[in-house]
């Protein structure tokens, strides 16, 4: 089990204002931000090869669903959570039941989700 300190978190978010907020929150929590990736190709590249411990994924990336990135993370065994304004309703069949951070969220909500992800790490 890892603590949040120095936890390397991949952020995939296509809206500047939102990703700036998430970056600030993660920094406050002591995490290291990887990204943020605003495009699917960049997100896939980072998900497949970057040095990361966990990931926070915006469900809708400029009209394109994020699920290929989630699949890549699953394959690598990297725990992740979705951040979405749709709540769980916006998830695809294959990812129902995954952790969802409902937008908007407080820093405390993000902390709880990250702690859950960190707990999945060996």
């Amino acid at each position, binding site marked *: 089990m890892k603590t949040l300190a120095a936890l390397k978190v991949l952020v995939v978010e296509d*809206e*500047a*204002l939102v990703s700036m907020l998430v970056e600030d929150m993660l920094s406050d929590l002591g995490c290291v931000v990887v990204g943020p990736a605003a495009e699917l190709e960049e997100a896939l590249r980072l998900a497949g090869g970057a040095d990361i411990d966990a990931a926070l994924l915006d469900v809708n990336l400029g009209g394109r669903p994020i699920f290929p990135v989630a699949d890549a993370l699953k394959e690598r065994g990297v725990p992740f959570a979705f951040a979405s*304004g749709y709540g769980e309703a916006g998830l695809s069949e294959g990812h129902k039941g995954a952790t969802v951070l409902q937008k908007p969220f407080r820093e405390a909500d993000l902390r709880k989700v990250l702690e859950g992800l960190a707990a999945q790490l060996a």
Partner: protein
Amino acid sequence: MSSLAKATSRAEEDEADDLVARLAAAEAALAEEVRRSRALNRIAEAIGAGHDAETLVQTVVDGGVELTGAQFGAFFYKVAGEAGESFMLYSLSGAPRSAFEAFPMPRSTAVFAPTFQGAGVVRSDDITRDPRYGRNAPYRGMPEGHLPVRSYLAVPVITRQGSVLGGLFFGHPQPARFGPHAESLMVGLAAQAAVAIESVRTHDAAHAELAQRRDAEERLKFALEAGRLGAWELDVETRAYLASDICKANYGRGPDDDFGFDDLVASVDPDDRPRMIAAIEAAIRHGADYDIEYRVRTPGGEIRWVHARGRAAQTGDHGGARRMAGVSLDVTARKRAEERQKLLVNELNHRVKNTLVSVQSIASQTLRTTDTPAAFRDAFEGRIMALSHTHDLLTQQNWEGASLREIFDFELEAFAARDRIAFDYARDVQLSPKATVALGMAIHELATNALKYGALSVPGGAVRVAWGPEPDAADAPRLRLTWTEHGGPPVVPPRRHGFGARLLEKGLAGELSAQVALAYDSLGLACTMKLPIRALEP
């Protein structure tokens, strides 16, 4: 030859003459009987031939005249009107219709009453001497100009149920023309006529009812077609299913295609089928209303929504339905609209949530970069207004995006120094909603900064905004957008990285995959953005 012999021979002769005369009379009577019998047969046949009521009654009256040797005959039928019962001339024989037209309808006088009340036959050798004659006001018997009647025979026409249809009347100007034989013949004829008239009436009524039903069916069909409603019927025991053309069309079938109950069930989407079967079984078992919407797959593979409604048209022995009837309606368009609306509501909800996060982000970052509540409020309000202006612009454009010039105009609309911002471009550029929001906020930050610290903070300072294709775009085409301040105070990079600079250099760079450079020099601030066209376009 003796006188006796003579006498005998005369007697014999007389006897022979008498015999001849009697024989001739008998022959004549027989001939008359045969003639009457033949006439009766002919009339009976004509009555049985099933004509319309008018022809039938005319045949009866003509036949009666022929059989009785009457001068004229008539059939009056009974009508119940507002003024009680009266009798209307229906058929006439042996006299023109005009012979009766001048007179009022016969009333239930002493002479006529037995006939119209069905009490019995009135036969008189001379009606003018009958004690019943002239007993009613104005006590003068037949009205002036009436056909001359002495011999009189009137027979009521009564149905088997005992209701009086009317009466057959025969007359002759000579007295004593109708004997008992004629009376009995007419009684028989009246009975036959009653049966025939009744049967014609029943037939006519059935016809009228049929026509009425056909009209009603025609109207129903029209209403169903106008409402695009299909009609169906189901016989529960035999599972025979009858569907109208529109009903078949709702399931993607042609009018000539077979479409039985099993076809119906098979066409329902497997996901909806158990629900549909349960609903129809409940309707059959308990007589409940059947009202359901389900998806169907047409033979062409198309998915449609059908709304089916029905109820028991005939109740079975145990309270359930023996026969069901109902309608079906293709509600695909409504269902699609509902789905679209649901999607739109979801999308709206998503946007609202995202906007709330944007506001949260603006608040959080403004808080980090301002020193006093007044400064926070000033900066925060300005940013929220900038976001709001962008939304106004997008709403005006139905959220399909906006042009770069429009974004500048909207963001700078209430800006004091807007006339000191000059534009230089060859072609306006259309942007996606996402790029519109991002650039709207960036423009607000640049303008606010210029007004506070840059060229627009002093009189005489100005800004030049220019855009066009990036000349050194090697692989992907890019737009080069510059914000150049001049005539203002010399500027230096800020000690603390503000929200605006961060949004431009990092946020915009991330969101639009842009390269953003801020240059602070003695001439003023210069911002250069290199924006990939594919990230901007709607």
